[in-house]
């Protein structure tokens, strides 16, 4: 049985190595259009105007009609979550996202300092308006 499992693991690894050799692995960069499409697939009622994109273009934030949206690239696809300010920890221009969701692991990324300051101003103002 162990040799059978090792054979299957070896064969699976060979198949994947072949996939990488063929260049079948890529990361996309988030842009406004891709974010809108991903958000629509997540919930067709979501509405938002602008997004701010992380420096390495693998994450983005937006303020929607249903709360803060977090976008993250997964290969050449995008995953979306509605989060709240408690999920965001700010360290200067570096942001740590803590979602407590094993399907969406915690991660850290950097945003342009001006964009992220503006973003937090907006979320705070919106929070005050809602209070």
């Amino acid at each position, binding site marked *: 049985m162990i040799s059978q499992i090792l054979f*299957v693991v070896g*064969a*699976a690894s060979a*198949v994947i190595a072949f*996939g990488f050799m063929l260049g079948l692995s890529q990361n996309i960069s988030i842009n406004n259009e891709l974010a809108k499409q991903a958000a629509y697939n997540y919930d*067709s009622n979501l509405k938002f105007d602008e997004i701010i994109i992380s420096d390495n273009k693998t994450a983005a934030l937006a303020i929607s009609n249903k709360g803060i949206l977090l976008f993250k690239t*997964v290969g050449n696809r995008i995953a979306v979550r509605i989060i709240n300010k408690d999920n965001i920890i700010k360290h200067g221009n570096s942001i740590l996202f803590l979602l407590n*969701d094993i399907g*969406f692991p915690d991660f850290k990324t950097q945003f342009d300092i001006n964009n992220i300051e503006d973003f937090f101003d907006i979320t705070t103002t919106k929070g005050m308006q809602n209070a």
Partner: protein
Amino acid sequence: MLDYVPLNLPSPVVWATPFFGFLVIAEMLYAKFGKTKAANYEAKDSFASLMMGVGNQIVGFVTASIFFAISVTAYQHRIFDIGTNPIIFVACFFLEDLSFYWFHRISHESRYFWASHIIHHSSQYYNLSTALRQTWTGTLSGGFIFWLPLAFLGFHPAMIGFFSGLSLVYQFWIHTETIDKMPKWFEAIFNTPSHHRVHHAVNPQYLDANYGGVLIIWDRLFGTFVPECKEDKPKYGVVTNIATFNPFRIAFHEWFGIFKDITSAKPKHIFGYLFGPPGWSHDGSRKTSKIIKAENKKA
């Protein structure tokens, strides 16, 4: 108690495993060099899918004895002594496929079973490697109960296991975008790549459709058949897509979600979070597929 006489039948999955590998490589080559570039591959995603398949086999080796022991017990208390003649084999094929239909349908309609089955739908890609993205918790969470009535009816457990394996092997080739449509007569009777693309899609009008294993006739019979529409290209994955290729996170993320919900819920809401449809919430803050479909119809 009736006797249990072992019945030696081959394991279709074991026999087919080398072909799975060759066909995934062939589809990767087609994805890279083919004219249409129809098969959409991401190597990291395929790695996750294959590791889920390997894990499924390892866990299956350990838990198969549980399924087999319970099936044999049911068979020993069988209602009819129907034997193992060719007509019984044919009947077993149809009834196994019907059992699969209901198992599959409930796996989409109840979050408890969905927690195991979501693994198979967790990729946003649709290619042959997606077929191998299988659950690690299916047997342990009791998915086999849907096949127990067959053993009680008198179908030999080895025969049920054989057709169940055969169904799994059949369903491998339908996880592809490289085949558009099969001949009309084939599309009418059998599950095909086109029918199964609809099943894996998250487009609102495609949700909760095409649960059949080998045959699509059950969906036509029970009203869950939806044809693929050229104007509406399927988008794959789940409504709340995961952001990881880690096999352990993939295997347990929905169970973790259930745990979080029921530990923070009022006692009267626990049943809903555990056995209600995926997306159910006590305050209506989330959406079930029925709600998504209804909203889409209104729009």
